[in-house]
Structure formats: C-alpha cells, structure tokens
C-alpha cells in the first residue's frame, strides 16, 4: 500500500493527515465528494454521505474516479464494503431526469422503468405529477419541481435536474475593483457556484462573503433578490454593494419593516417575508412576483421554515446561500443542501487564516469558581434556573473588569445572554449596552462610534451576533452563552476575525463557572470551533487576571 495522507475508515469517514506532503493534493481530490466534518490541527475528518456523493455525480464525477482517488491516496487498504457502497450509491443518481420537453413542459424521464414505477407509486410524490406520457416519461407540475426533487432525494433516487434556470431580467452589474481585488478563494467560490448553478458557499466570518455575493451578481448581470437576517445587515449589504460594484443608490432597494422598495437589486429581511397576516404571507409576492435571475440567502443557517417552503417553489431560479457555519441546531442542514443546492465551496477557517485574510484568534476559556453562597444557591436551585444562576455569577463581573483593564487601548466587546448581567457590567465598565430594545438608529450610531474608536468598550446582547461589521474589535469577552449553540459561538468569534490593521491576533475570552451547567454547555458550544481548529486554552480565573 502507498504511504498516502488518507485513512479511509469503515464507518464512512476519511481522515486526512494535514502535515503529510500530499495533504493539499488529497484534500482537493476528496473535497469534491466528501464533506469536511472536523478540522482540528493535525487530522481532519471528512464524511462520505449519499448527498455528497450525489452532488459529486451532479458535478460530473463518476464512481470510478472516486474509488480511484480513495485507493490512490489511502495509506491502508480501503474497506471493500465501503467501495461497493460508494459505487452502489452513486449509481442511483440520475436514473431519473427532470427535463424540459418542448411539448409537455417539465417532465421526468428515466431509462430504468422499474425506478419510475416505484417512484410514482410513492404516496407523497403522486400529487406532484401530471399525466404519464409513455412508459419512461411523466409530466411534472412545474411549481412542484423543488418539492419533487426533495422527495426523490428522501426516497434515495435523486433526480438529475437538467431543466436549467431562467435568466431573469438582465441588469448590468460589474465589480469596481479599484484599490481591492477579488481574493483567490472568493474567485474560486464564485466560479464553483456559477458552474454548479445553485448552491451554498461556506466562508468564515470576516472572509468577505458579501463580496462573493457581489461577484456572483456581476457574473450573472441580472436582477437580484438578497435575503438577509435584519435591517442593520441590510444596510451593510447596501453600503458594501455601493462600494464594490457599479450599482448606484437608485438601483438598490430595501424591503424591510419600515421601507418597501423594489429595485433591480432588492435587499429584503427574512422577518418581513415571514410576517403573517390572516394566515397568509403578504410579502412573499415579492419573491415570486418578480423575474429575479438570482436569489442570495445570507446566513443560510438561519433560514426560517417558511422560507424553506417558499424556496422549494423557486427551483428554476439560481440560488446562492452564504454562511460561515453550516451547523443548524435544528439539524436541517440536509434541507438547505437539497433546496438551495449543494455546498459549492468550503474552506477550513485555519486555511484562510494562514493566507492572512482573516485575523488569527486566540481563544481562552477562563474558569471561575463560584463563591460558596452561590454554589449553595446553585445546588438548591430548580433545574430551570440553574443555567442562569451559574452563568451570571458575580465573580464573572469582577473578572470582566480585570480583563478589560488588562487590554487597555483595544476595541473590546462584552457579549452576553442575560440583560440584567449586561446592564450591570455596562454600569461597572461605564460602557453603553446594546440590546433588543435599543433602536436601530441608536445601534447604528453606537456601532459607528465604536468603529471610529470614539467608544472603546461595547456591551452587546445576542442582537449583535450576526452580520454586523465591527472591523476593529480585537477582544471579546463572552460572559454567558445561549446554552449549547455551536453556531452562535462561532458567530461571536467571527466578530473578531476581520483582519486587524497591525496584524494583531484577536482574543476571545469565554468566562465559565466551574463544575456547573455553564461548563457543560461551554464544552458543547466550543465543539464547532475546536473542530475548525480553534483550540481553547483553559485558565483559572486567578491566573487569567494576573497574566494579562
């Protein structure tokens, strides 16, 4: 056997030894069909899933090439059953094809008669189909294209969608590359996306996902709908587009709670689209009432359920999903892949960091000991109160003061879950607090002041988790997290990763109460980052205060 960098396990994972000389080559070879699951410092692990294999087939890779790659780079014999399984799985793709028929419109065709028979007998699929044309062809209601594809995927007979995309209303957009350039990975991500038609691009926070969106728009030159999480983030998209592309103020519309403009490029919030009145979604018309050529989903890991359903009907339009962490706490990653499209680009955070595009980060978990009275209170508390009790310990407040003092002159964020605790910290540090009730204008003002360096310390609740560009924050202190949410932790770290002018490393503190639920949840939250290669150092409170 060759001395390759891969170890193929019989549980369908692939281990990649990062320090091996062929590691980069092997990574590129397997990235096409395996999904990166964990990327700690020495051994990355990938997983083979039916979805990943089918996506590879969709991208033109056949089973023979996959087997060949595995055998070539594997250090040990590859479990034979796995090889058989890969071949078998990949052969299921494309037995059914969705095609445009000049006479009948959208049809489903097959060369494998029994498969079609099996499929059209499935209870959930039958209503989506029209009349049977002949033994191998059946008409599909074109509005049900997404739904059908998703159900076929569940049945294990993924369809090869050859029906193509609508072009949308043409609208000239190009990138203004003066003083900046598309980074190689952004370029690659855009190309991968466009070649694949639809799909998801996964890039770490601060790595410039907005620019990938802009580049996609420039490639397509078509009217575009951008869906974002909130108004602040909508404004940031607008600013960024004005700066990076040929689009002018008049060409970009905002469609949110306060403003309802529809322009060639329209930025809408998830919230307004999912507003429900009298059992219907009045604003959904924005989506299907216009001839969009491209729909961009920002922070696709937060996509709400109604948007999922809506997206199913949009299969004829190009869809681009952007995210830093495709970990959904509700486990619906699979649906994202099947509705928006497969992952088209993914890079471990550490790789981008190594290229210097995001700031290196130093994560520190500081363990505080609860004082005796709090320990007793914790021990006697009801289960429902326990987490709040331990994560809002007053020793944390004191420690925050110490840590803030240890980083003089740095832009610093204190992030937390419980408003009382944040208010108290704000008062102790004499810093403004941004929370849910803070108005959008106030938020914007505070963020601007923070960016300008007029304010050095900002205390924020979870409203600041996403899509807020805080370029110069270099230290964050998380006093309490929202239970075990992995993606939240990642987003919070993401706040710090925009590269610093002086190339400094960012510092992320997580304060954790020892021997409590807080510690357990912290360990859960950290898993995503640990798997991305961000290792937490663990310190005791007394050492942390002294060392800094």
């Amino acid at each position, binding site marked *: 056997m060759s001395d390759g960098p891969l170890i193929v396990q019989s549980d369908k994972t692939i281990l990649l030894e990062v320090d091996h000389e062929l590691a980069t080559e092997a990574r590129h070879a397997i990235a096409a069909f395996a999904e990166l699951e964990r990327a*700690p*410092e020495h051994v990355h692990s990938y997983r083979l899933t039916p979805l990943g294999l089918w996506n590879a087939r969709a991208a033109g890779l056949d089973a023979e090439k996959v087997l060949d790659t595995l055998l070539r780079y594997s250090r040990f014999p590859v479990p034979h059953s796995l090889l058989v399984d890969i071949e078998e799985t990949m052969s299921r793709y494309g037995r059914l094809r969705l095609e445009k028929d000049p006479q009948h419109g959208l049809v489903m065709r097959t060369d494998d008669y029994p498969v079609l028979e099996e499929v059209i007998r499935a209870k959930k699929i039958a209503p989506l189909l029209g009349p049977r044309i002949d033994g191998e062809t059946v008409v599909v209601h074109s509005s049900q294209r997404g739904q059908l594809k998703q159900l076929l995927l569940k049945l294990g007979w993924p369809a090869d969608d050859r029906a193509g995309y609508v072009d949308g209303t043409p609208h000239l957009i190009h990138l203004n590359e003066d003083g900046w350039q598309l980074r190689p990975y952004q370029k690659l991500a855009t190309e991968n996306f466009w070649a694949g038609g639809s799909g998801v691009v996964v890039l770490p926070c601060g790595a410039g996902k907005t620019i990938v969106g802009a580049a996609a728009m420039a490639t397509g030159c078509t009217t575009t709908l951008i869906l974002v999480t909130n108004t602040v983030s909508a404004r940031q998209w607008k600013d960024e587009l004005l700066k990076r592309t040929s689009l002018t103020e008049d060409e970009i519309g905002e469609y949110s709670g306060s403003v309802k403009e529809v322009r060639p490029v329209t930025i809408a919030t998830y919230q307004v689209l999912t507003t429900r009145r009298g059992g219907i979604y009045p604003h959904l018309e924005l989506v299907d009432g216009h001839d969009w050529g491209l729909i961009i989903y920002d922070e696709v890991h937060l996509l709400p359920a109604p948007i999922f359903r809506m997206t199913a009907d949009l299969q004829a339009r190009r869809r681009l999903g952007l995210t830093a962490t495709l970990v959904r706490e509700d486990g619906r990653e699979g649906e994202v892949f099947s509705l928006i499209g497969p992952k088209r680009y993914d890079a471990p955070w550490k790789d981008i960091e190594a290229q210097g595009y995001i700031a290196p980060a130093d994560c520190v978990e500081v363990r505080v000991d609860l004082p005796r009275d709090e320990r007793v209170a914790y021990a006697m508390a009801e289960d429902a109160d326990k987490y709040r009790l331990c994560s809002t310990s007053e020793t944390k407040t004191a420690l925050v003061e110490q840590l803030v003092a240890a980083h003089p002159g740095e832009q610093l964020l204190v992030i937390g879950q419980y408003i009382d605790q944040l208010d108290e910290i704000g008062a102790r540090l004499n810093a403004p607090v941004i929370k849910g009730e803070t108005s959008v204008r106030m938020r914007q003002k505070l963020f601007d002041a923070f960016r300008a360096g007029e304010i050095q310390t900002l205390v924020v609740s979870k409203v600041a988790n996403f899509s807020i560009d805080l370029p110069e924050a270099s230290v964050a202190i998380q006093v309490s997290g929202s239970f075990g949410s992995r993606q939240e932790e990642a987003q919070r770290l993401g706040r710090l990763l925009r590269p610093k002018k002086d190339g400094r490393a960012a510092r992320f503190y997580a304060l954790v109460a020892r021997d409590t639920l807080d510690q357990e949840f912290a360990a859960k939250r950290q898993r995503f980052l640990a798997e991305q290669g961000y290792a937490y150092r663990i310190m005791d409170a007394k050492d942390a205060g002294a060392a800094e």
Partner: protein
Amino acid sequence: MSLIRALSKDLEARSDDSLRALFAARPDLMSPAAPDFAALAARASARVSVQRAMERLNKPEMQVLEALHLCTNPDTGHGISAAGLKKVIAGATLTALDGILHRLEDLALIQRCEPPAGTPPAPKQRFYLPVGSLKDVVGIYPAGLGRSYTELVRLQPAFAQRAVQLVTELRHSGASVPEAATPMDAALALQRWTSAPKALEGILAKAPERTRALLDKFGSWAMGAVPQAQRMASIANEGPDVGPIDWLLARGLLVPLDASHVELPHSVGLALRGGMIVDHFTVHAPRPELGLTSALLRRNAALGAIAEALRLLAELLAAAREQPLATLRSGGVGVRELKRLADRLRVDMREAGLFLEIAALAGLLRLDVDSSTWVQPAGLEWISLPRQEQWLWVVNAWLASERAPSLVGQAVSASAGHQGRPSSAGTTINALSAEAQRPDAPLIRRRVLEILHELTEEASAPDGRAPVLDARSVLERAEWSQPRMARRFSSLVPGILREAELLGLIGSGALTQLGAAVAVEQPERALDILGEHLPAAVNHVLLQADLTAVAPGYLSPGLGERLALLADAEGQGPATIYRFSEGSIRRALDAGQDAASILQFLREHSATEVPQPLEYLVQDTASRHGRLRVASSASFIQSDDETAIAELLQESGTASLGLVRLAPTVLTSAASPRETARVLRELGLSPTVQEAEPAVVRYKRTTAVPGSARPVYSAPRSAPAEDDVEAQLAVLRQRPAGPPATSGEAAAQLGLEALERAIRLKQAVTMNVVDGQGNSATETVVPVSVSGGRVRVFDPARDTERVLSIHRIVDVEPAAGQVAGHAHKQGT
C-alpha cells in the same frame, strides 16, 4: 462365483501401483489395515464404503455408474460393455465411456464379468457389473428414473388395487393395451404400452396442453409433489377441460405414492428421454460466466478485511476480559449478550456473532465451566504474536473447525441436517450453541477452496484480473464435481464464502493470493505475502486540541490498551480515534494512574506536543479526583471518647489489629469484629459488637490451562499417509493367497452377500448357527429379510418364521436346490 470373491481375486491380481491408487482414492479401505485381499474386497463392497466412494465421483462418473446399474443384473451376472452403455447415454463417446469405466473399475466400484452368452466374441469388448451393495447406495431413483410398474404394483397396494380397472378403462377408451386380470398383468400391460418412445409420443399427442411442461418437471427426478395426489381420476368421467395431472393420473402415467406425491414410472420416464437413460451427458464441467476484478481491488479488499478482522478479534478479547460472555442455560450465547458485544465492538449483531464464533473456534475464548462464561484463556499466546501469524492461527483453526459460524442468527429450522426442537419454530441459532455444529464443515471448506482455485485458474485473465466467484458458480461446480454431496454444500457454501471474505481469502469476490496459497496448502507463502503487505504497527498517536488522539494505523497492542483506559475509542476502521473526557481520565485515575504519569505517557507517545486543553483536563480532573475515598477494612471501632481512641492507637497490644485512625472518634481495624473485640477484651475493655452479615468469600476453582493452544491445520485426509499405504501393501502381499474368507471380516460380508442374494432369488440357504450356549447347529432355511443386525427366515422344516441374530450365524452357503436338510457342511 460370489461377487466379493471375484473382486478379491481381481484386487489380488492388480499391480502395487494400482492398489496404491485405490487406497489413495478410498482411504477408508485400509483403516484399520486389512489383513488380506478377501477382507479388502469385503470392505470395498460394504455399503458405507461404497457410499463414501460415490461421494467423490463427479457427475459423468455418476451418470455412467447409474446407467450401468440400471442395465445390469448382478444376480444373473448380466453385465454391460462401453458399447452397450453408449446406446443409453446420449452424447457419449466410446473413448469417454472407456475412460470413466476404467476409473470406476480402479475404484473397485464396478468389476469385470463374463460377456453374456451368445455375444459374438470381440477382443476389446469388456463387460462390467457393479459391486453388490451399489443397489442399496444408489438410491430409490437411479439416474432420476422412477421404479417400474411391476415394482410399483408390488409396493403400492393402493395402485395395485386400481391397476386392473385402469387397464380396463384404457382399453374402453381405445388404447392398444393388452387385457389384464391381475395387478401384475396390468403392470406388465402398462409397461408394454408406454415403453416405446414413439408410442408414448402418440399417447401424449391427445393430452391437454401444459402436459408436456408438467412432464418436463420430472426430467431429473421421478418424484414430484402434487396436492391431493390420491384423487379419483378416471377416464370414464373425464370432461373436455381436464387438467394435465388428472389426465396423467387417469392413464397411470403418473402413479400416486401418498396424499401429496406422485411418481413417474420407469418406462414412461425412459420413453420421455427418447429411450436414453442419460439424456444430458456432461463430460466437462460447466464453465460459469464470471466477471473479473483487478488485482489491486482484490488485494486491497483482502488486506483491509484481514486488518479489520484481527482488530475486531483483539477488541472482542478485550471485551471478554472486561466482562466474560455469559451463556444461556440451553447453551450458546444469548441475543442480549451478543447485542452487548456488538455495541462494544461497534458492529452489527451478525458480524459480532461471526467473530465470536471465530474467536471461540480458534481457541481465543474458552468456556469456563465454573462460571458458565466464555473467557480468554490465561496466557493466551495469540495476543503477542505478529499479526500475520495471528491471521494464520485463525485461518488454520477455521479450516479445521466443525463449527459453521455463519449459521448463527439463522432460523433453526432452516439449518438442514439438524433436528430442531419442536417448539423452536421461528427461533434462531445462538452463537456458540450446538446448533451451529457441522461435522462435515472441514471437508466442505477444503473442497470449496479447491473449487475456488480451480475456477480461478480456469478463468483468470493475463493482466492479473481474477474472476468474481459467487456462491452460485461454486455450487454449480460442486454439483458437477460431487453430485452426491450437493445438498450438504448448498447449506454451507454461502457462509463459507462470507467467512473466507472476512479472513481475506476472498477479496472483492475473487480468490486472493492468500486464498490461493491456502488452497494449495502453502501457508508459508501466505505468511510471506502478508508479512510484506500488512502495515507495521504504529507506536505514536496525534494529540489534538479538541481532546482527541488519532492513532494513524494499527496501534501496538500495549499502547492501544493503555490508551483505551485513558480515552474512549470512536469510529471503525484502520485508524482509531480516542476521545478524552473527564470520565475517561477519571477511569484511568481510578486504575491507579496519576496526572504526572498520564501526561508522561502522552508525551512519550505523541508525535506532537500535548495540547494545553488536554493537559488542563488531566490536571483539573486529577486535582479533584479522590474527594471521596473508598477503602476496605474488616471492622471499625467507634467511641465518643476521643482520648480512649487515641490511647487505643498507642496500645502495643493492638498492633495485630492494624488500626488506622480515620477521624478523632473512629478507628478501622484489619481484623474481623469478633477478633477485634477479643483483643480489646484482653486489654480489659468491654466493647459491644455490632456484627453485620459476614462477607461471603468464595474461592474459585481455577481450571488448568493446557499448553499452547495454537492450532495446527492439516487438510482433511483426502489421501492416507504414504507409510501407511506401504505397510498395508506389505501386509496384503506377504500373505499367500490362502483359502478364501479366512478372516472374520470377509466372512461376515460374504455371509451377508449370500443371504441377500438368497432373499432376492427366494432360495434356501444352509447356515451354521451358534446358540446361546455356544453349541453350533446347521439349519436349512429360506431367508426373508435382513435388517438391524437380524435376519428373518422361514423354516420349511417347521413351517414357521423365525428371527436370528446375524452375529450368531457362522457360515452361510446356498442350499444348492436341496431344501430338505441333508449333506450339511461344517463351517470354520
């Protein structure tokens, strides 16, 4: 002359080489050594020996033998020649037949005889007869043909009753059947009516459609299952839409046997085959169409499987060391226990069952009789062997084992050859239970390997690709090469192939280099190949900050064991991921390690630095380990008087108690409460004793461990050792041809032959019988039947029937037509 005596003469006349070949082919003939040729001939004619010899015959040999059996009559000495056989075997050539007849003669299954009287003398024409017991062994339907009408009338009273009426009805319907008054006449009439192929063709021309198709189903076997076989079918009340079965039954072309079976009579079957006994003569083995697989894939699969199998076996042993596997009262390891094992090994139950069986048959696990659990024997050598030798150990044990591991988990009733308990419908075979025992497994395994090798040799492509062999192609070849064994093969072959795949003998569906080496009995070659290709054990791990350690390959056993204590293994495959957690570190601390030694161990065996979070985890866990301590003591002393306690500790008289002060008011003592109290009383104190139940101490008997359990495989004896053959030859040759039937062995067989012949010909015999007191007497009787060591005879002198034990009969001679007793001959 008796057939056995003739065979004896024939054997004696053979060359030594010819005898050597005979012994090689039928080793049972010389175990134990035969004293003389008469005994040898007797043995060669014995039913069991003939049966064994027939198991080794291939399909064309069986076809010729069966045809020969049907065309000859040993009683009248009517033999047949190759030319004669050619007429009844379609597609046979004289050369092929001659070759097969020679081989059968060499095997002493057939013997030469005189040409029938009136045959024109042809110098090259040789006539043959089968050995006497062949008719008992060849089965009820030789060549798949049914019995004759006359026999059916004799054996099936229901048919006999109906036969005459049947013929009458046939005559009424206009068939050209001779008239019959008795059942026997009817049988002969039917026989004559059906025996010519042309005539049958004419009869069937009027049959309802699908009759042909139905008859074709009887093509290879004369019996078939039919619902309500004994229905009243008659030509008289036959409608126009009569079904084929009714039609055939009404004309006696099918004969009902019981409520659900019918038989196609001999003459009908023969006529359907166009008068040929054998209509498909298969001289050459069928060549299956096989796909090919590349050498790379084959080797990859084999090495992968071997590494995996050895890893799982090692893990299985570790699991058994932790907690031995309990057995059920009815024997075997139950489903719940197997599930536990499967979870522990992270495999499914089926695989867990297989590996458990393999571990046990290789002697890696042993049943501890005291606790009724399966445990690893003490000092098991296997664990410390290099991996290739571990593999060979397991393979050797598997080859020689009478267990059929793949039967585990199958339904009890589905396993052929075993009598399931009546209530066991739907139950499955438990691992390590008696139901998975198959005494012929080693033989079949050997044969399967040979067949795999044969097929591979025949079909392999020049570019190193080898044929993909499935159970079907193996069974097809087995069916051709040993038709008499086919049924035994069919139940075991799929399992054997699966097990061979687990052990790397088959990879990617094809026989691997290792498998080929084992098939031709060159295990050293397999060892060499394996030693070269199995990756060496690694002795380092990669520690990562997400609290995992990755072992990038097979970890040397000692290291693996220590890591398994420190962290929980995850995943399945050549590499193992160990995840550290507070719980796992605590486990190591409990086992007596401390933070320093754990970190030292990690540093020594890590290819990288120990990450800070891991270091912190170890130290943090260790610093909090032991807040509560548990220790043992036999008794304690408690007093509210602290000074009394302190004094007691100082007292020299209490030294024997091993007192330890736990708290100001509590001491523990190493002695029992009674003993402690006694010592205290001696010191003038008056303690009260609160005696709890005494701890139960059990001493376990340790079973002595036999020496090395390493299995040494020798192929199932296909040929006897050379020395033994020479010794046997020497014995046979040194003895001059003495009077026939000198040995008791030959005499018994000769006696039986004479008896059976007499029964068939209904002749009287003269026999010398010894009574209970040892007095011998000579009697002339007519034997009726022989079975179970007894012979039933009719004594014409007293006009009664009697039963005699065969061992009391010293000698049997045909009475040569003299029924009344005179001219008695004294036996030996």
